[in-house]
C-alpha cells in the first residue's frame, strides 16, 4: 500500500515546492498595476528644445521635474520656464510654478501665477503680462484667462478681470473691470 502511495506523495511535495518558489519569486510591485492617472514617466531637471521644419530651435523648456500621465496624454511640469523664439517675432518667456501640458504641448494650463514676458521690438517696449489660471496655446500664440490680469508696457499699465491675448496679432481684450494708466510720451511736435 505504502509503495503505491509514494508517487502520489512525491507529486504533492513537488507541487508544494513549485507553489512556494513561485510566491517567493513574485515581486510585490508587480501586483500593483499602474493606474492611468499616475505618472508612467518621471524626469528630474529637464531641458528640452523643439525644432521647426527648418531645423531652427523655436521652443525651449527647462523644468525641475516632469511627470507624464497616460490619461489624456498629459504632462505636469514643476517650476517650468518656457522660451519661444518665432522667426521675426520678439522672444517670449513664460515662467510659473506649475504647468500642465495637454495633447503634446498644444495647450498649456497654469493654475498658479504665471508671468509672460515679450521682449521689446522696433516699435514697442517690453510687455509683461502677469496672471493666474492662464491657458496658453503656443503655436497660434493665444493666451487667455478668466482671472485677474495686469499688463505692463513702458510707463503704461492695464489691468482687468479676464483677458484674451493674441501675441502674434498683438491684440489683447480685457473682459471686465478695466483700468489703464497710460503715460503719454512727451510730444515731439
Amino acid at each position: 500500500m505504502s509503495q503505491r502511495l509514494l508517487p502520489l506523495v512525491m507529486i504533492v511535495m513537488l507541487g508544494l515546492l513549485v507553489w512556494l518558489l513561485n510566491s517567493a519569486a513574485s515581486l510585490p510591485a508587480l501586483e500593483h498595476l499602474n493606474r492611468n492617472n499616475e505618472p508612467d514617466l518621471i524626469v528630474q531637471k529637464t531641458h528640452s528644445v523643439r525644432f521647426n521644419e527648418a531645423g531652427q530651435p523655436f521652443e525651449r523648456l527647462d523644468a525641475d521635474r516632469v511627470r507624464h500621465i497616460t490619461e489624456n496624454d498629459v504632462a505636469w511640469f514643476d517650476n517650468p520656464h518656457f522660451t519661444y523664439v518665432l522667426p521675426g517675432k520678439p522672444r517670449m518667456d513664460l515662467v510659473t510654478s506649475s504647468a500642465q501640458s495637454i495633447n503634446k504641448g498644444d495647450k498649456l494650463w497654469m493654475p498658479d501665477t504665471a508671468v509672460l514676458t515679450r521682449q521689446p521690438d522696433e516699435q514697442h517696449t517690453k510687455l509683461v503680462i502677469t496672471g493666474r489660471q492662464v491657458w496658453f496655446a503656443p503655436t497660434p500664440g493665444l493666451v487667455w484667462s478668466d482671472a485677474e490680469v495686469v499688463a505692463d508696457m513702458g510707463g503704461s499699465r492695464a489691468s482687468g478681470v479676464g483677458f484674451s491675448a493674441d501675441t502674434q496679432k498683438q491684440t489683447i481684450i480685457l473682459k471686465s473691470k478695466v483700468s489703464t494708466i497710460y503715460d503719454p510720451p512727451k510730444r515731439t511736435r
Partner: protein
Amino acid sequence: AKADREEKIHIQADQGNFDQKTNTGVYIGNVIVTQGSMTLRSDKLTISQDADGNQFSQGQGNPVKFRERGDDGTWITAESLRYDYNGKTGLLTLIDKANVHKDQDEVIGDIITYNLNTDQYEAKTTGKSGSRVNITITPKKKASAPAAAARPAATNASEAQ
C-alpha cells in the same frame, strides 16, 4: 489746462480691446477718463496715438460729459452725444446736442469746436432748418465805482492825523 496734456491718462471701463500694432485702444461701458484736472465720461471711447506721441480720441455717450479746469482756474464743463479730440491741434469737437459752460457763459449748438490751447471756441449748426446757435455771455461785474472812490479818501484821513 495745457499742463494736463502732459499728465498720465487713467481710463476705467467695463471692457477694453487693445491693438498694439495700430496703437489703438477701444473702451466700452461706463468709460471714465481722467488726465490732470480733466475728466471725461462716455459709453464708448477709442483712443490712439501717432508716431510723434500725439493722442487722438473719439467717443459717444448719452451724453458724453467733459469737465476741465482752465488755465485761469475756472471750470469748463461740456456735453454732447459724440466728440472728437485731436491732440495735435488741441481741438475738441463736440457733435450733436452740444453745450459748453464756463463760469456764467454758455454756448449751445449742433457742433462746438473748442481749442484747448487758445481757449477759443466756434459754435455752428448742421444747417438743418430751425437749428440755431445760442451763446450767452455774462459781463464780468466791475468793482462798483463808489467803493473805488471811497478808498483813497480813507487813506487821506489817516495821513492827516
